[in-house]
């Protein structure tokens, strides 16, 4: 018997606040848990790649568009940061907005062909972009340093007031980790806000039913371009963060393989969930560091070629996930979590105002119909007074928050005055009593 918690209720809010505080605590404590330079650097990489995977997740998991161009965005962000810091003496953090702007613009440009085409053509275009990026880096050698790479002389320095002492051996790494983690948390919050906004809902609609979405007023073109641009911007931020962690950029760092590895991480972590980016990033970094080291040390491969073993393992991992666990790690965890805690949606206040006269007669004629869709009728106070009510509300919106689901069509249709006037006060009061 799982614990039932109503969304938006006091316990739900406490749970959210508690888990946020716990997450923050873990994030702050992590570098002191692994008190060594390579491991703290690895944590920083995880935080940075989590942002990249999150961007990919917005595009693929939420908007349903496939992209292999993410390595190009990560590279664009990385080169922006390194070039601005090395050639123009910018502070590191100030370069992040610049790479956001650049990647937004480039993402929108790549998104434009996405309007004409769907699915596979799009993947082909983005694959070409990913293959193109290293060639462009080599072509514009005076700007990017070409094949020899580009380096910034000084790593990021902490200001005087920062609470970590940078003069210990691990200090600078920890400072960088906190900065990267702070930006990453910020990006997660931004993603959350975007996905909950009107345009985020439009993305999901576009993924699930493109024709219906277009028919109910979603601007398909605008939403797709927006998704591409946003995803590109997240990739750019990730590139900048990686450049903060290790201030160098080279053409071999941002190849098509990086895109595919990011895809593997996304699918393994769970696409279509925001938090799936975190296990995805952990898998990504662990594969590329620990597994690579382990494979290089294997005697049968003459001590070389650890990367090849990683490639094969990643391919097998991707196949296994696609076959056995299509929802990824986050999906699996959610399924386990649902056994322990179950969230129900509150019955929206004033739902009677939207009930049609005919359906009123119909539902009241059938007394106490058992409703499989509503999780637990006793959880909300209003259901006890009217047993037929949850079947009319919660069957229409089981997954999303009913209040927003109820308001979206009225906001969408705009012009019709009858549907767009919510009257919560009169009917809501009667339900409570």
């Amino acid at each position, binding site marked *: 018997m799982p614990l039932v918690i109503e969304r938006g209720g006091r316990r739900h809010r406490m749970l959210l606040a508690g888990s946020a505080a716990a997450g923050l605590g873990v994030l702050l404590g992590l570098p002191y848990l692994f008190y060594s330079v390579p491991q703290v650097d690895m944590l920083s990489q995880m935080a940075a790649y989590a942002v990249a995977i999150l961007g990919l997740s917005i595009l*693929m998991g939420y908007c*349903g568009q*496939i992209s*292999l161009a993410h390595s190009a965005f990560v590279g664009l962000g990385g080169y922006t940061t390194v070039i601005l810091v090395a050639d123009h003496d910018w502070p590191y953090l100030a370069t992040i907005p610049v790479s956001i702007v650049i990647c937004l613009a480039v993402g929108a440009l790549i998104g434009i*062909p996405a309007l*004409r*085409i769907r*699915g*596979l*053509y799009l*993947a*082909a*275009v983005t*694959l*070409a*972009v990913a*293959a*193109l990026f290293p*060639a*462009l880096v*080599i*072509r514009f050698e005076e700007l990017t340093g070409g094949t020899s790479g580009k380096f910034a002389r000084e790593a990021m320095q902490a200001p005087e007031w920062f609470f970590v002492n940078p003069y210990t051996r691990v200090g600078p790494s920890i400072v960088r980790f906190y900065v990267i983690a702070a930006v990453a948390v910020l990006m997660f919050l931004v993603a959350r806000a975007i996905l909950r906004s009107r345009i985020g809902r439009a993305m999901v609609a576009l993924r699930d039913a493109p*024709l219906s979405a277009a028919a109910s007023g979603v601007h398909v073109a605008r939403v797709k371009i927006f998704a591409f641009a946003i995803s590109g911007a997240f990739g750019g931020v990730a590139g900048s963060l990686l450049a903060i962690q290790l201030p160098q950029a080279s053409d071999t760092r941002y190849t*098509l*393989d990086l895109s*595919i*590895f990011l*895809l*593997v991480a996304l*699918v393994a972590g769970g696409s279509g969930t925001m938090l799936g980016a975190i296990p995805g990033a952990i898998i990504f970094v662990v594969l590329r560091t620990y597994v690579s080291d382990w494979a290089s040390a294997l005697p049968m*491969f003459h001590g070389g*070629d650890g*990367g*090849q*073993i*990683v*490639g*094969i393992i*990643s*391919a*097998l991992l*991707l*196949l296994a996930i*696609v*076959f056995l666990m*299509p929802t990824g790690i986050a999906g699996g965890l959610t399924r386990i979590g649902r056994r322990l805690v179950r969230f129900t949606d509150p019955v929206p206040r004033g739902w009677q105002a939207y009930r049609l006269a005919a359906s009123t007669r119909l539902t009241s004629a059938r007394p106490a119909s058992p409703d499989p869709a509503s999780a637990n009728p006793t959880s909300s106070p209003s259901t006890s007074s009217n047993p037929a009510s949850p079947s009319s509300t919660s069957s229409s919106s089981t997954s999303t928050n009913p209040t927003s689901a109820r308001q979206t069509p009225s906001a969408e249709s705009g012009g019709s005055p009858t549907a767009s006037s919510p009257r919560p006060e009169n009917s809501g009061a009667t339900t409570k009593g």
Partner: protein
Amino acid sequence: MGTVLSETARDDQAGLDVIAIRLRQGRLRAVLIVLALLAAFSAWALIDGGLQLYLQRFFDGVTNGLLYGLGALSLVIVFKATGIINFAQGPMAMLGCYLALTVLDLGPVPVVAAIVVAMVLSGLGGAVLERVLIRPFDQNNHMAIIMVTLALFLGFNALAALIWGFHPKSFPSPFPQGAADAIVIAGARLSYQAIGTAVLVVATVVVLEAVLSRTRLGLAFRCVASDVERSRLLGIDIGRTVQFSWALAAAVGTLGACLIAPSTYVDPGFMNKILVYAFAAATLGGLDSIRGALVGGLLTGLSVSLVTGYLPGVGSELGLVVGFAVIIAVLQFKPAGLFGNRAMERV
């Protein structure tokens, strides 16, 4: 459900069919526009660099283009039958090329025999791949199938690097490759290898068309390509047909890689660049047209060769940019490609 219109409208009564006439006119116009662009560029190039240079670039472009066309062909075959783009086609062809090299290493075998053995082996491999990794998924679950092909892309590249290493290897040509083995036309060399490649590619397309139009499996293939649901109702074994298309595509891809390899070199990533050109060719020709793949390959090869050869500031390393520009331009102006059929959605 996508319905392909013009395939059925190519019979005798097509003259009366308004849609077919429109389609044909549109196709003709598009081809004429492309040819006019090419002719204009050629005229400028002739004035700029003279006849000999132009002819040389032209021959290079045509030879490369035919090979891109072969790559595009293997994409098109799978796309026609399943509606997916096989991203692993490049690495699959690369593995086939390595197989041919391995056969050559085993003993004194003629190059042609080695290529044929590699084609057969990779055809079998393609069939096995389809059966094991692709068929378990719903055909309409494109995202999962793309993931599988990307996993194959990653895995095959890594596998080849693990087994054969990163050192570039040279691949012997089945045709005479010496400095003297060429026809000289107005000072430009047209090597026997180029001629042989061209003949082989055209022969492959002719044989393929014959197989698809004369044999029972080919008929089933075309039926599945036009409508999966109806073919199933007609009693066609969809799985077997799709498997056949994967095997065919793998064999054709291996042939393409073995023909490209003598002019480049063989290393684990050598087909990835070709894959982009093949995409460009397939997009230009229309992803569901076999003839279109060849024509698209020719045009792509020509434009890459001419643009990188003549435009100042576009070096040979930017050939990929030209391929990319071709893809974008086609998608912008004629998304179905020159010879492709626009899929019509019934709502």
